[in-house]
């Protein structure tokens, strides 16, 4: 990995930054027009881990699709290092919300897909693949098909498939959802370790407050309908991060702040009838210790 140059050094050639400037995204559905993002502006800083939170349906995945270049904004622009995004590119790779490993390829073929598409020599491909597969602990499983892997392994394979290409920006859409609590915690530790080692620009979406704060340099919270940035919080917890920080006073302080902000938006989404928002609000209400509020709504 050429990006292994420690934290703090943010080389323009190795890592990118993302600027979302005044982006509006509308969808036409049977004559009805839905505005998902409106005048949304956001800065994903070079070499930093930016975490995005917001209620379900607020447009996080849509925002990712715009940054990745899969869809085009209705208005506004997305820039990668001052260059406007016109389509998908190898400089920003996405770990999708739904697993997007190619089911008909083995782990090895999945991971080396990018190298092969670019015509990198077999020898170098193999060398890189072995390194990255060992790093994510899947070397023994390289000849398995995705369905033969556990959820956590699939996620690591997806990480490896992206990281082997040394993208300037990594985009991860709820990569740890659906994992059990223990695996999730292990994956968080593993992921934060990778980030601290390599230090590339990361854009990470999650629903979990603790996960968000544990990982992030900067936490961005979105509003619900229309989606735009509601607040940004700098997470000044020291690196390397350690699970023990989850109990620190500073962590608790940030967490309280974030939950208050999220609660407002979750409540809005809840009254708009969003199912996941209901779950999120349930969790938030429990965390706030105000359970009777939900019963009133029913």
């Amino acid at each position: 990995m050429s990006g292994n140059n420690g934290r703090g050094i943010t080389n323009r050639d190795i890592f990118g930054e993302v600027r979302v400037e005044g982006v509006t995204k509308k969808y036409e559905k049977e004559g009805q027009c839905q505005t998902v993002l409106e005048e949304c502006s956001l800065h994903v800083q070079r070499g930093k881990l930016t975490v995005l939170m917001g209620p379900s349906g607020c447009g996080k995945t849509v925002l990712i699709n715009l940054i990745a270049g899969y869809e085009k904004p209705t208005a506004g622009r997305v820039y990668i290092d001052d260059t406007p995004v016109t389509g998908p590119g190898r400089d920003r790779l996405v770990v999708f919300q739904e697993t997007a490993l190619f089911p008909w390829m083995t782990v090895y073929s999945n991971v080396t897909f990018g190298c092969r598409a670019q015509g990198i020599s077999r020898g170098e491909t193999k060398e890189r693949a072995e390194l990255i597969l060992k790093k994510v602990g899947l070397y023994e499983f390289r000849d398995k098909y995705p369905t033969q892997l556990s959820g956590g392994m699939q996620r690591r394979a997806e990480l490896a498939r992206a990281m082997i290409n040394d993208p300037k920006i990594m985009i991860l859409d709820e990569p740890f959802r659906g994992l059990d609590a223990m695996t999730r915690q292990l994956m968080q530790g593993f992921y934060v370790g990778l980030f601290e080692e390599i230090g590339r620009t990361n854009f990470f979406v999650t629903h979990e407050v603790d996960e968000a704060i544990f990982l992030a340099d900067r936490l961005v919270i979105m509003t619900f309908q229309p989606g735009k940035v509601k607040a940004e919080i700098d997470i000044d917890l020291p690196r390397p991060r350690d699970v023990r920080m989850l109990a620190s006073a500073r962590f608790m302080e940030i967490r309280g702040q974030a939950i208050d902000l999220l609660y407002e938006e979750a409540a809005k989404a809840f009254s708009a009838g969003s199912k996941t928002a209901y779950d999120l609000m349930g969790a938030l209400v429990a965390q706030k210790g105000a359970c009777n509020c939900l019963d009133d709504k029913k």
Partner: protein
Amino acid sequence: MKKISKVVNVKTLRGVVSVVFFVALWQLVVLVKVPYLQNLPYPKEVAVDGIQAAGSKAYWFDWGISLMRIFIGFIAAQLIGIPLGLAMGISRIFKSYTFPVFEILRPIPPIAWIPIAILFWPTRELSIYFLVFIGAFFIIVINVLQGVSNISVSLKWAATSLGARPKDIFWKIMVPGSLPSIVTGMTVGMGVTWNVLIAAEMIAGQGGLGRMTWEAYTNHNIPFIVVGMVSIGVAGYLCSTFIRWLGEKAMPWKRKF
């Protein structure tokens, strides 16, 4: 290992029991002369005729003719149908030009094509190939089309981001992604194909298992009618098994461990 062989044995045993039970029931039906079934031959008569047939060249020649007709018509349907289905699934414009006509022709039962096939093709043999083709064609196209549209857009996006060109997307995403539907289309098509073939042979054919069975009828050779029916059943079963085997070979990622 021990456990697996035990399971297989139990399964085989049950299969044998079901066949024996069926033959016994058949014997009983003939013995007690159940109304409307008096003409049914004894299982033994059928077996004797069957064994005799198996020793004759003519019988195997009919097998060969039927299998060849299936093979030609079916392969032609795949060679034309799979690319057509892929093209319709990939290009919206192409689909909007072709799909309406396709949807009008598709519900016509293949057997309804028999008269026109006989009229339009110069030889009977060609019309049978054509009918077999029709039997498999619409099914494979509709399955491939569905298979392509079921491929998740994030797979295409992921591949594009990783640097895949349209050619790679086609060969490495679209084709393997629609393979399960192709195999389904082939399996269903193979079943329909045998239906059509037998009908076509009975009406228009020279030789073949369908014709053989029909001639047994015109000769009032009832045991041999049953021999023909059983032969057709076995042939259809063998063809379906072959397709299933092919599917398993082509899709190692679907194998259960």
